[in-house]
């Protein structure tokens, strides 16, 4: 990946498009900044004037209330003005192109785009074509990357397990094939030299040459989560539960759904994560989701701080444009 796209020559964030291409120091800096912002979100006044006067546009080509809301809240807590623009595929098919849309918004002096798109590579494409003073944050592109979600997961793991990822065994369970979250998590975990990264899925949901991502591949849940310190469950989209990928949600739950009983194979202090929203009784049962190992709600809370960190760090630095 072309690093110069998201990192400027001073080594700072220019855009935030993928975990791939970041270095360990920058990743740690973002996590540390998120730690600071998480203090802000715990204050009675949850707002700081860092991005006052800046205009941020949530440019969503794919519906996602949850992600959009957390970016919106993060922007508001940084005192930025934020605009939500939802563009369905159909309105860009004919007539106005994506670039026309960008140009129009730029003309309104937007400082940052937060982009969600169903196509892999969409955020990169937009970053390549925005005006030099505009920053782009990837809020999920196709199956490619969802770097802020991965960061908040890493942030959560660091809080629970400490900063030494070298001694951790992390298992990612579920639809790896279609998951941009999993790809970003794997890159981040590798960047932090995680002891072992495993993916656990039936072959229909395992991408080709998955080992090349730097993971160990398992097709059986019990083996895959054996002695795991962290289990990250992925959301299974409804439309994939029945058909040629999986026969039924029932069978998926039987084989890959996490229950208290199956958790016995993992470490006693295993941490359970899920990007939400959970399909209870498909990916895991309620006992696990609401149980002592689950940090699912903490993930949501951390999402705001992580996005505040990324937005404030990627916001264009004036002097680097004039240099």
């Amino acid at each position, binding site marked *: 990946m072309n690093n110069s796209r998201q990192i400027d020559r001073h080594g700072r964030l220019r855009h935030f498009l993928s975990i791939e291409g970041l270095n360990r120091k920058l990743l740690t800096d973002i996590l540390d900044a998120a730690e600071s912002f998480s203090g802000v979100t715990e204050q009675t006044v949850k707002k700081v004037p860092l991005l006052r006067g800046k205009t941020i546009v949530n440019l969503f080509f794919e519906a996602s209330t949850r992600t959009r809301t957390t970016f919106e809240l993060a922007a508001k807590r940084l005192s930025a003005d934020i605009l939500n623009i939802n563009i369905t595929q159909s309105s860009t098919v004919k007539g106005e192109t994506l670039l026309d849309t960008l140009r129009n918004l730029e003309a309104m002096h937007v400082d940052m785009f937060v982009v969600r798109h169903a196509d892999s590579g969409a955020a990169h494409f937009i970053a390549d074509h925005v005006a030099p003073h505009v920053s782009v944050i990837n809020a999920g592109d196709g199956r490619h990357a969802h770097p802020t979600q991965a960061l908040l997961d890493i942030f959560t793991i660091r809080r629970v397990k400490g900063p030494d990822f070298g001694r951790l065994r992390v298992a990612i369970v579920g639809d790896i094939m279609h998951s941009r979250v999993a790809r970003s998590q794997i890159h981040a975990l590798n960047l932090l030299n995680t002891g072992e990264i495993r993916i656990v899925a039936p072959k229909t949901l395992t991408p080709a*040459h998955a080992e090349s991502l730097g993971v160990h591949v398992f097709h059986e849940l019990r083996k895959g989560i054996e002695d795991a310190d962290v289990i990250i469950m992925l959301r299974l989209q409804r439309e994939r539960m029945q058909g040629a990928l999986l026969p039924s949600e029932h069978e998926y739950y039987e084989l890959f759904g996490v229950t208290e009983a199956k958790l016995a194979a993992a470490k006693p202090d295993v941490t359970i994560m899920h990007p939400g929203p959970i399909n209870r009784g498909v990916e895991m049962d309620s006992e696990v989701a609401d149980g002592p190992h689950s940090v699912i709600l903490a993930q949501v809370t951390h999402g705001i701080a992580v996005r505040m960190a990324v937005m404030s760090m990627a916001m264009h630095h004036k002097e680097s444009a004039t240099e």
Partner: protein
Amino acid sequence: MPAPATMTQKLRLKGGRVIDPANKVDGLLDVYIADDRIAALGDAPDGFDGAHEIDASGCIVCPGLVDLCARVREPGYEHKATIATESVAAAAGGITTLCCPPDTNPVVETPADIELIRLRAEKIGKTRIVTLGALTHGLDGERLSEMAALKNAGCVGVSNALRPLANTLVQRRALEYAATFDLTVFLHPNDHWLSANGCAHEGRVATRLGLPGIPEAAETAAVARDLTLIEQTGIRAHFCHLTTARAVHMVARAQFDGLPVTADVAIPYLYLTEVDISDFDSRCHVIPPLRTTQDRLHLREALKRGTLSAICSDHQPHEADAKLRSFPSTEPGISGLDTLLPLGLRLVDEHVIELDELIHRLTAGPSGILGLPFGSLSVGASADVCIFDPDLTWQLNTDTIRSNGHNTPFMGWEMKGRVTHTLLAGKLVHSLAG
């Protein structure tokens, strides 16, 4: 009755190295042209005193190139390119015959459609354009086209281009019907179900980028099915631009077994691999997708061996907007007329293939697949000639590219070898100086 000598246009191509693989000619020879035909090679026949001359010294004189697959986008997609613009590009690239697949709009499925393209090309007069007729009605993959009428109107074969056939029964019937009229069927082997909505080779790069993949099996499963039906129906078939080592191996095996099958490779696949899309470079978005380094190596070897008996440009010019989207939403295809010969010559530089073999794959090879009498400098043949300076270097850029489509990942490349003159049926249709 021959025309009076005084009326004959006579031309002498002087001092060049003539390479005509079809006739196993390679030497410093003069070429003599009378009207639209090759009159002689070597010694001047009678009546050539004072004939017009083209100085070909230092250059290679070879048959005009024959491109098996080039889209000129007319009719229907004139915002991308037209017969006029692409004819000029073809002539500048030394291409004197190019074959269009039928996926224009409307598709090529009636004699009138064939006639329209042929007449427009003749009017422009820069290159000869032949067409493949639709294998199914409207390329819908379900109903047969009127192949007899298409053949009578001059189509050089039938194809369903990149569109899928509904099922194997339709395919069997279509091949049988085409075989009835001794038409060659041009197949783009792709299992529609396996490739689904993929846009990149299902491999390491697509996995990393999260791009929907097209597995190798989409090509090999189709080739296996096609070969079975070819054997059953006895049709003469051509596989358009194979991309995988395994598919090439299957075709080589079938050829060895005596099946009447040929295959070509499109030139981008001899250079690019899946790695070239790793930065979401939409210029490298092609269908079928760029495969692995291993596949590229096998394609190069199969070209040398002759399993792949032609190189085509798979020219697909686009307007700029077609590529200005996120990778999966961009239109696939590379503009290739300008680079067919120079990228071919680079294969010689890289010791993939000998120069005469290259010229064969660009002339007699494809002409034979199309069943056309072109691609050689035989006496009496149409005087389609390409003269190029093999040492002239130039850069492919927006100033030098002649095609209307600037969509090529080779933009900015230093090219070695440039066409100086192109003759179409004895007529000078391109001259670098002029």
